[in-house]
């Protein structure tokens, strides 16, 4: 019993620590600009109009639209190419499969900065810098991390199901679409969510390709550049920060189970 209380006390204390930053963000987002510069932690008066002010000061809907387009298209394109590739790596046997898998792992582990300059020049040649397309279009050729994640999931599906489908006359594509995909739904959902959140939270990519063109900015880029002329207005900045966090939290609560499953999957069970 004592142990029970002790464990819960520690867990509650930790929960509070994890929540504290958000708590103070919320409080500050309702303050006046002047009060947000004082050490008063509780608002002396409440100003929900700060949130309206954020919309007035920044093209937030524009950023939101750009971010959504980036995240949704990147996720759809990634799935189109990565699911078949993962299937070939998990369930088909062919020359060079192990080598391809090693290459995929290397690509997954490669810091994006390594390939930044040549790729930037490539997209500049094609006239696509200044937009988010250099971050979206490559997904049509698959994403290394997603392929790896999906492959880890697909190898756990017993071959018997696939063999049964083949005996019934399904081609490989038929087997993938009709038999494997329905069974692999949690894995596909996890890969999709990782890609979506990666794109949604990405800062380096949009900074690299769109920093000169404000109309293509994403939420992260806009938030990082959110400044008043003279000083940081913390009441507005905290409101903008919370608005940026909100969509992610909403998506998480709708898809919590698949998400936690997915994170576990990345942990590589030997």
């Amino acid at each position, binding site marked *: 019993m004592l142990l029970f209380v002790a464990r819960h006390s520690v867990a509650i204390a930790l929960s509070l620590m994890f929540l504290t930053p958000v708590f103070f963000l919320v409080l500050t987002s309702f303050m006046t600009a002047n009060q947000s510069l004082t050490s008063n932690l509780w608002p002396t008066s409440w100003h929900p109009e700060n949130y309206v002010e954020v919309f007035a000061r920044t093209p937030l809907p524009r950023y939101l639209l750009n971010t959504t387009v980036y995240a949704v298209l990147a996720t759809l394109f990634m799935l189109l190419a990565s699911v078949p590739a993962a299937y070939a790596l998990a369930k*088909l046997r062919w020359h060079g499969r192990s080598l391809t898998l090693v290459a*995929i792992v290397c690509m997954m582990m490669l*810091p994006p900065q390594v390939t930044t300059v040549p790729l930037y020049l490539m997209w500049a040649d094609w006239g696509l810098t200044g937009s988010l397309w250099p971050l979206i279009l490559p997904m049509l*050729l698959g994403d290394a991390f997603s392929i790896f994640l999906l492959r880890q999931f697909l190898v756990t599906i017993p071959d018997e199901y696939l063999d049964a489908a083949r005996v019934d006359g399904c081609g490989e594509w038929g087997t993938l679409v009709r038999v494997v995909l329905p069974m692999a739904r949690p894995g596909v959902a996890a890969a999709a969510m990782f890609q979506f959140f990666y794109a949604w939270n990405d800062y380096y990519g949009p*900074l690299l390709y769109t920093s000169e063109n404000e109309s293509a900015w994403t939420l992260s880029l806009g938030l990082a550049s959110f400044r008043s002329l003279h000083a940081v207005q913390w009441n507005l*900045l905290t409101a903008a920060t919370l608005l940026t966090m909100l969509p992610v939290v909403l998506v998480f609560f709708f898809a919590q189970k698949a998400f*936690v499953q997915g994170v576990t999957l990345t942990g590589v069970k030997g």
Partner: protein
Amino acid sequence: MAVSTVRAPGRLPGAPPARRTMPRRVRLRRNLTVLSFIAPALVGLALFLGYPLLASVYFSFTKFDLVNPPEWVGLRNWAFLRDDPNVRTAAANTLWLVVVMVPARMLGAMCTGLLLARFRSGAGIYRTLFYLPALAPPVAATLAFVFMFKPGTGPVNTMLATVGIEGPLWFNSPEWAKPSLVLLALWGVGDLMIIFLAALLDVPKQLYEAAALDGANAWQQFRAVTLPAISPVLLFAAVTGVIQTLQYFTQAAVAASVASGQATTGGGISSTFGYPEKSTFTYPLWLYVAGFRYGALGYANVLAVVLFLVAIAVTAILLRRFRAFLGSDQ
């Protein structure tokens, strides 16, 4: 190679494939089928891994910017690596983060994971609460922390003051800026925690019971049972942690820019990078600034090749454990 698609009647599952006797036409069709699955990914590997790696090596021997085409300069960029004071600062900062942040995150994930693994019920809500910050967009999370740790009037120092402690300048102090970034990384430890928790829950209960029968105390059980059982996950976490820290960019750039309080444009970071006193100036930050703000694209490729060599060496550790890592069928 082997045949899993050929519907050979009578072939036992797992029997050696009849590759030699397969008609050429069938083999060709099979290869085309495989290709239809994997071709886009292969093109992707060539275009986004193979080409840029080779180009990077070539560019590292040239001088150019976004306007002028590459011009061969031999080893000049590489020689500059030796005299570049920025690269020394940047590499030292990144190394500091690797040495402190990676173990800190692993320890944090281990402790929270161990705690949650002890709950029979009710772990769900704690797990969600611990995990949520890991989802926050890095830019937003960094802003939240710079705000929390604002010197003078920030909530953390205000609370410290009520108990009589004068808090440090955190993100505004060259000594405390990196430790503050570590605290930020710990706030987002939830993703790693979930991985550790899954591994901890997978450890067979009988092992603990056997150890307890042998008179092992909690610490001994942890050393003799838990650690060996989760060692693959520890290795995975260490390697991916190092790789992530090698590319540590967003939080360092945003923290410096916001803490400095200076107005910057274009999500701009060049005037504030490394603030305060280059204490948050990481290696990838220097690569980006050298290439895209100073226009020294040739030299940026020298930095890229070096980063690649370090990353591949770390990845090799993981690949050596390929079997354990990728599953049993390799």
